[in-house]
């Protein structure tokens, strides 16, 4: 039996430590990892928990992230609860295997500490790695601070392992700003946390020798499409289980999560849509603008990046006049991915708000309250004019001449 760890009602944890504690409390059977900045402490701490008797499980040091995720796939197919962590280049090296994990419907939990992708090499936080995973068939949940990194990692096991889902789940947090910033975190006791997550329910496990199975079959044009479609449907419909798990979590802790978080949207005239730590910056800016400048600003944040909350976006932005969608990843030749999702959702509604795209914060470039305020002010100008007064895509917080693309065709 694993030893229990006595936790205080309030702990001072950074996002990494919070995530590692959630993995410990879920009593993961196998963590196979290749540590990488800034997510290193998650698996480093987990290794220590195993070594010190706090977990009945195996910690496997792999030869690369590709090997780490491959070992996770093997352990999950064998029938264990499996998790690991990664960032940036490590995420990119895992990418091929991420598709294998989801295609085989293995509910692995991957705690991703978001970091920019080289070149140029950079260890700071942006969403380049998170975006690279968006077609990989994983549930992607985004935490905006350390408490959420802890809470949502516990929820991730319960979501992915639900028999109606059976999909791997990523829990994202921003590199350094969340992962290395110590904050107050209210943990559950070991007993409460494990009771919430529950025992692992194996499905088609390879270690059941009475029912031998093949994993990783090849399918060509005759079968591949049907399997992908079935998997897509499972991910599209996983929102029901996500809602259920968030409800149960609220009952247990009083902390309420939603697939689409909304702040001050009841009467908002202008809005920022963002992910990660930027959400808290934008909320702070919105509060000040409401008080100081009378701008009815609100913030919308997809908690669930995949499955994407289309219906909730439609409702949240139905009465908003101008929307700024913030992408913390360089789209390289297109509009930002989040912008495209929002426009896709709004295109089928009569609301037709003015929507523009801001690229910001690449490679950990600070996104200040004043930056958020300026974006809100531009939305206010759009709302007052009744048309888009700027280019469709602008770069925020960039040195040098203003960089922007595409004239609006609506006026």
């Amino acid at each position, binding site marked *: 039996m694993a030893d229990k760890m006595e936790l205080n009602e309030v702990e001072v944890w950074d996002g990494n430590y919070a995530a590692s504690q959630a993995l410990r409390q879920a009593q993961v059977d196998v963590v196979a990892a290749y540590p990488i900045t800034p997510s290193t402490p998650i698996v480093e701490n987990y290794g220590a928990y195993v070594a010190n008797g706090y977990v009945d499980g195996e910690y496997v040091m792999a030869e690369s992230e590709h090997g780490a995720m491959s070992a996770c796939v093997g352990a999950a197919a064998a029938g264990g609860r499996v998790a690991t962590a990664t960032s940036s280049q490590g995420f990119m090296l895992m990418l091929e295997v991420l598709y294998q994990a989801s*295609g*085989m419907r293995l509910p692995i939990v991957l705690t991703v500490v978001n970091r920019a992708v080289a070149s140029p090499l950079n260890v700071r936080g942006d969403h380049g790695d998170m975006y690279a995973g968006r077609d990989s068939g994983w549930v992607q949940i985004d935490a905006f601070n350390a408490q959420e990194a802890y809470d949502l990692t516990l929820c991730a096991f319960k979501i992915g392992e639900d028999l109606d889902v059976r999909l791997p789940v990523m829990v994202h947090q921003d590199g350094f700003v969340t992962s290395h910033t110590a904050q107050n975190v209210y943990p559950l006791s070991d007993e409460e946390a494990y009771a919430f997550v529950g025992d692992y329910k194996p499905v088609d496990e390879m270690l059941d020798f009475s*029912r031998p199975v093949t994993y*990783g079959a090849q399918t060509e044009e005759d079968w591949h499409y049907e399997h992908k479609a079935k998997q897509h449907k499972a991910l599209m419909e996983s929102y029901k289980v996500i809602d259920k798990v968030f409800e149960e979590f609220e009952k247990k802790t009083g902390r309420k999560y939603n697939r689409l978080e909304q702040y001050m949207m009841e009467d908002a005239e202008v809005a920022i849509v963002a992910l990660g730590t930027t959400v808290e910056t934008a909320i702070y800016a919105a509060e000040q603008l409401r008080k100081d400048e009378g701008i009815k600003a609100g913030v919308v944040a997809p908690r669930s990046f995949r499955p994407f909350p289309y219906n909730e976006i439609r409702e949240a932005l139905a009465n908003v006049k101008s929307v700024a969608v913030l992408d913390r990843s360089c789209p390289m030749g297109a509009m930002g991915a989040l912008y495209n999702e929002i426009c896709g959702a709004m295109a089928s509604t009569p609301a037709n708000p003015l929507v523009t795209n801001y690229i910001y914060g690449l490679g950990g470039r600070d996104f200040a309250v004043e930056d958020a305020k300026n974006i809100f002010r531009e939305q206010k100008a759009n709302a007052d004019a009744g048309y888009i007064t700027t280019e469709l895509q602008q770069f925020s917080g960039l040195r040098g001449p203003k960089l922007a693309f595409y004239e609006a065709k609506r006026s």
Partner: protein
Amino acid sequence: MKGVLATEKRGIRELGAEEMVGWDEVTQGVVLHSFDTEVENVAHIRPEERPYSDFNSYTATVASWRVIKPVYNRDVCIDCQNCWVWCPDTSIISRDKQMLGIDYDHCKGCGVCVEVCPTNPKSLLMFAEAEDNEEALAKWPEKKKKEK
């Protein structure tokens, strides 16, 4: 040409000729179960007695992939098991170390068994797929004299 120990289920359909069910009926995670029922100590059960499912390659035939085939000559064979050991597709059927013949549902005609056969003349030789086995046996070569 079913070959020896072919059961009702061995090679009952061409690979790829499965029933083409829709997305709602394919297995979750492309997981394929080898057997229709639970099994115990299956390694100790002979293949023809195992409850192979339609997902197992045992029930599919790939005979059509072959253009040449090995023919087995019992009269020359010394039951050394070399072919059984080397066959990459477990298509040599042997029982109690006695060679029985070839699983023509799964043999690809690679010729490895012929290559490793140590007898003189060989107990396995490659013939055209269309050649009748009896006719092939009638043409079997004589023992070669050792060259001095």
